[in-house]
């Protein structure tokens, strides 16, 4: 298990407007984090509808120890609050998910979504501008044609680098319910957007049409028993996708089988353990995130207390189950009261699919090494970490005597939760979002 060190604190807001972590505004809460396919860029979305993109510094021989730090590359307002007049409902501008598209040219493309609308953004650099127009002067004022005596050809002159983001496509009006996931297909032509009851397939070029591929809305809404909680395309097979449900099951569908994939090809569910039954069994079995491994061979799901790794070839039970914070099992009632039980934690694979990571409370996040079966709990906090310090493993004490460095369950801060994390696609660099702060940790360099 690698030790994570070289703690580089990146505050979500630029330094001049830092708010201390105890009094951040709600709009600054990070709601999604995503590396692009090369790891060069890292995008974060927040509750205020903004997207901030970080870019990794090129490694330079002059400063070898500053190996690839991430700096702010672009910031833009992706979504604004809207109002649905028909239903008298406000549509939140919170960015639910960001997904990068693979890069084809100099520009970068990403999809960002709020509850109702998906947008395709193009992020491009501009480092030259034309100068020497004939019809307007340097400030842009129109010149009187009568004063023009000569003609010249405008030339491109270098300027300070400007990164601009433009909305290239807006995919809207396709979802009645709240969008919870988007996933780009490996064919790089289509993507899907998922809400509570339906999954729609879009072509990246076409915004006025989408195909409904899954619809679990019952004819009579009174019979509703489960909703879709997450969905993802297979990383290699462009016809395969999975979606998870609030009942703790995962369905794998093949789009070649039928136009409407209501009938699954595979159904993954683990029978419930009756000894653990409680009022809240259904809530804690609801899957909050589902991720394919990079290889496409495995599937990882996160429910409230565990992370499970499934083999696509075995539907009856997961291959591996990891307890994230089982000490909360006895506290489910109070977690229900303060709404923490509804928190949707995400989970991520590392580049080689050997380690999985997910968040917890008290700004803790957990990593599980699938090969060595070792796990570690780390904390993302400013107080405990200095730059270039190695992160110290933390431990939660579940009862009995508390050792010196341990934290007891009752002193955990449930308002500090790590829901969103991301792992660089090939290196050991992780991005952890703790409320309004983004932490980027890198592996120790020898």
């Amino acid at each position: 298990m690698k030790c994570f060190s070289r703690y580089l604190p990146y505050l979500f807001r630029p330094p001049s407007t830092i708010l201390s972590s105890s009094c951040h505004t709600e709009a600054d809460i990070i709601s999604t984090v995503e590396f692009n396919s090369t790891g060069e860029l890292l995008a974060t979305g927040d509750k205020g509808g903004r997207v901030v993109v970080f870019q990794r510094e090129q490694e330079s021989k002059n400063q070898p120890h500053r190996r690839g730090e991430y700096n702010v590359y672009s910031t833009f307002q992706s979504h604004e609050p809207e109002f649905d007049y028909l239903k008298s409902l406000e549509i939140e501008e919170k960015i639910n998910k960001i997904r990068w598209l693979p890069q084809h040219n100099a520009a970068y493309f990403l999809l960002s979504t709020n509850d109702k609308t998906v947008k395709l953004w193009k992020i491009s650099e501009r480092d030259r501008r034309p100068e020497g127009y004939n019809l307007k002067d340097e400030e842009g004022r129109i010149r009187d044609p009568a004063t023009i005596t000569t003609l010249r050809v405008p030339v491109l002159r270098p300027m300070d680098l400007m990164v601009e983001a433009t909305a290239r496509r807006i995919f809207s009006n396709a979802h009645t319910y709240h969008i919870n996931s988007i996933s780009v297909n490996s064919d790089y032509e289509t993507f899907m957007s998922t809400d509570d009851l339906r999954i729609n397939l879009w072509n990246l070029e076409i915004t006025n049409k989408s195909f409904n591929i899954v619809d679990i809305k019952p004819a009579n809404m009174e019979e509703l028993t489960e909703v879709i909680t997450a969905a993802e395309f297979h990383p290699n097979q462009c016809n395969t996708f999975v979606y998870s449900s609030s009942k703790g099951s995962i369905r794998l569908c093949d789009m070649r089988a039928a136009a409407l994939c209501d009938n699954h090809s595979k159904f993954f569910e683990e029978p419930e353990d009756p000894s653990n039954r409680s009022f809240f069994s259904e809530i804690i079995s609801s899957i909050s995130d589902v991720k394919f491994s990079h290889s496409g061979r495995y599937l990882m799901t996160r429910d409230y207390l565990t992370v499970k790794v499934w083999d696509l070839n075995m539907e009856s039970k997961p291959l591996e189950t990891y307890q994230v914070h089982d000490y909360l099992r006895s506290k489910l009632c109070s977690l229900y009261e303060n709404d923490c039980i509804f928190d949707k934690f995400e989970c991520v694979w590392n580049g080689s699919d050997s380690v999985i990571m997910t968040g917890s409370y008290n700004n803790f996040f957990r990593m599980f090494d699938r090969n060595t079966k070792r796990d570690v709990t780390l904390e993302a906090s400013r107080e405990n970490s200095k730059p270039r310090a190695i992160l110290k493993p933390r431990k939660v004490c579940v009862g009995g005597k508390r050792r010196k460095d341990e934290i007891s369950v009752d002193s955990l801060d449930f308002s500090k939760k790590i829901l969103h994390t991301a792992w660089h696609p090939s290196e050991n660099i992780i991005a952890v979002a703790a409320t309004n702060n983004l932490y980027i940790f890198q592996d120790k360099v020898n």
Partner: protein
Amino acid sequence: MEYKVEAHRIMSISLGKIYNSRVQRGGIKLHKNLLVSLVLRSARQVYLSDYYGGACLGSQRAEAGEWAEGETMESLEGRSSPGAAGADSCESETESRETLRAPETNAQASVEVAAERNAEEPASSSDYNWPQGGETDEERAPGQAEDSTQVPSCPVPESRFECGAANADEGPQSPAAAAPCCTRKRSAGKSPYAGSPVKRPRPGSVPPANTEGGDASEDMDTGNVSSLITIFGSSFSGLLSKDGAQAEPGAADGDSGSGTICCEQMLPNLSPWSTAIVAF
């Protein structure tokens, strides 16, 4: 009996959550409300399991009651290793789970009937300002002509309301839609069900534990909660018989109006409990 108190508390918390979800920004979250309604249903089953210890619906109910009791003994007393009771409950649980699902159609039908009746009562009472107009509810029962002509969609999330305690002999009836629940048109100051009879808690029931009595204003008045519980749990025969029992006075909650409003608005909202997320 502690589990009944616990179940009661969980029910009132759940009801509060459902109420609060309406005023949350971004609209009602279907997923969260579905989960809350599942918890509410489980808590309700536990709470009422004592009423029907085998009396009605024959063996089905008995198994369900047994399961509920066994389960709560498990969960609430915090026993992780299944003891003798646990082992029994495990076994009966699997079979009763199936049986619980079976009477669902019956249960839903009777719930809908009750919802319909519930809607009719306040309509006749001039005190209660049922929302008029609004969008048509597609699930409206045909036989509801005497009720308000159009009923706005109810944003209360659906719960698969397995009213195991419902009278199975009512049989499946035409699905009643009555979703006369919406908040917007309701005026806050009216007292609910002033004219409509709400059956008093049955003698054998647990008196409402006033644990939340002095709590934050958004907590339910537990007296109202137990009347809600009995509305749902009393197999609706109470509503049918119309004993003339008075509603719990919503205004009894002496603190800020929001607590009262919460209760007032919850009562009619929950009576068409089974009619679902028609707002969507």
